[in-house]
């Protein structure tokens, strides 16, 4: 029992550290990639290739003056960014990072917890994330912040519906399980889910962009209209937490997309490779290679997120709502219908 608790504790800390590290270096990569896309060089002064830039940014954030507006609700004002950060970090709990591995004779699972309603948990926690933005924007007692918060909540609620229906179709394809580990394991043999759910993947991807408040759906914080949106009144590390949480969300949603649609830690010809290397099931090396494959996929997704941000202009608000309700929602319903019919004839549907 004690070893179980200790092992889980270690995994918790590792996932926490990885989430933060990836988020920190996402900011570096965001700047670097945007520079490359614009024929610039990007940060290259702090350390080799500017690799210490995130530390410099963090240090700058900490030393900035902390301003809490007089007219704000202080408790909620502080609660907002905390809630956003906590929910962003909590989502990493159900993601399976690698195959189970024997370390010192005992089998350890490379996941904080494999609950059988992992998908529901994920959606629940992401929904709570909206509260952080809403509370933060409202407690600021500033009309721009409030408008940004309202936009954020309405946008996230609208796109969650299409996203949820796309995931229902995915769950039907993967045999009715809500456990992320099982969804990933199912893609071990045969094709990745994206082959059966191409439309579902596109819908999920667009919704993920909207859920993480990334361009072209970054209306809640558009500087041009709202002076920064829901975090207008925030300064110092509280602002840093908001910005940081966005990158953690991006990392987690990339991880979820890779797990749902691209097989997570599985990759084509994985078993052939393991056989050629003479690795038995449960080997540390299999876990490590799978982890590497998973992170390659996550890296590609994060890069595509950024690539889109530095290509597309922002949607207008009515266009955003139009796209969410009049295109994505019917499309996801259509996708669900098609999936049900196809899976019925494939014999995967049991009544």
């Amino acid at each position: 029992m004690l070893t179980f608790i200790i092992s889980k504790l270690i995994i918790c800390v590792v996932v926490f550290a990885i989430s933060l590290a990836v988020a920190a270096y996402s900011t570096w990569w965001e700047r670097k990639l945007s520079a490359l896309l614009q024929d610039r060089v990007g940060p290259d002064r702090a350390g080799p290739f500017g690799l210490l830039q995130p530390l410099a940014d963090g240090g700058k954030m900490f030393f900035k003056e902390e301003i809490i507006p007089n007219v704000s609700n202080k408790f909620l004002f502080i609660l907002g960014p905390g809630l956003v950060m906590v929910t962003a970090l909590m989502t990493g709990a159900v993601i399976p990072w690698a195959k189970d591995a024997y370390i010192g004779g005992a089998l350890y699972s490379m996941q904080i917890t494999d609950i059988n309603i992992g998908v529901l948990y994920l959606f629940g926690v992401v929904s709570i994330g909206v509260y952080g933005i809403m509370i933060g924007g409202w407690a600021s007692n500033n009309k721009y912040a409030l408008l940004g918060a309202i936009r954020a909540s309405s946008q996230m609620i609208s796109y969650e519906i299409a996203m949820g229906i796309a995931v229902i179709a995915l769950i039907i394809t993967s045999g009715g399980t809500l456990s992320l580990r099982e969804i990933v394991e199912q893609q071990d043999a045969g094709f990745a889910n994206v082959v059966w759910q191409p439309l579902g993947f596109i819908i999920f991807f667009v919704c993920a962009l909207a859920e993480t408040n990334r361009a072209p759906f970054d209306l809640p914080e558009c500087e041009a209209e709202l002076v920064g949106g829901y975090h207008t009144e925030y300064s110092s590390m509280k602002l840093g937490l908001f910005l940081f949480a966005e990158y953690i969300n991006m990392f987690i949603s990339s991880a979820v997309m890779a797990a749902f649609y691209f097989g997570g830690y599985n990759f084509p010809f994985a078993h052939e490779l393991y056989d050629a290397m003479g690795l038995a099931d449960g080997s540390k090396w299999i876990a490590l290679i799978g982890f590497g494959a998973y992170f390659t996929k996550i890296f590609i997704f994060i890069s595509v997120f950024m690539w889109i941000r530095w290509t597309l202009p922002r949607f207008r608000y009515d266009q955003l709502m139009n796209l969410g309700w009049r295109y994505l929602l019917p499309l996801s319903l259509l996708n669900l219908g098609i999936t049900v019919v196809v899976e019925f004839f494939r014999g995967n549907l049991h009544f």
Partner: protein
Amino acid sequence: MKLTNRSKVVSDNKEQTGMEKLYLPGIIKGMLITGSHLFKRRATVRYPEETRPMAGVYRGWHVLKRDENGAERCTACGLCAVACPAEAITMESAERKKGEESLYREEKYAKTYEINMLRCIFCGLCEEACPKEAIFLTDRLVDTEYEREDFVYGKSKLVEKIDKRIDVSKRQTLEVAEFKKLPGLKHNEVWEGKNLNKGNKH
């Protein structure tokens, strides 16, 4: 009511075609355009380490030349200060004492010589005015400073170091060199005849 014929229809607000409504082809096209820039040449130059090639005749940070023996050429005649349209140059003259022959070329020299780099417009007229070939503009860029006072460059920043001579051969065009080869008195006559005696003010 139509007032003029000059108004142009910029957009006829056409309905989007079905293909455009799909967004995705347009998005992919846009992403390919930005993606192609990943492989293009960077426009940025990492400045202090890398510099762009400069024209030999670039007019930057001034230098006060020494002659071949290492003595300062400037005699504090003040013609550069007169020529300067921005009034950036000030100087104080002093008489050379015995034993200073190796320091100063002629009997009179500039005790202080200051150029205010914030006033200077780098026109090069000081260089043109100089009868002693003492001042030249070089292709070195003026440093950035935190205080305005630091932009007033004194002799310590203007006079070239004996062991680190600055090549100004590109600034010395053939015409200037020929003109300045005219023997002493004649040189001044031509110069005065051209500019001062006729009362031409620039």
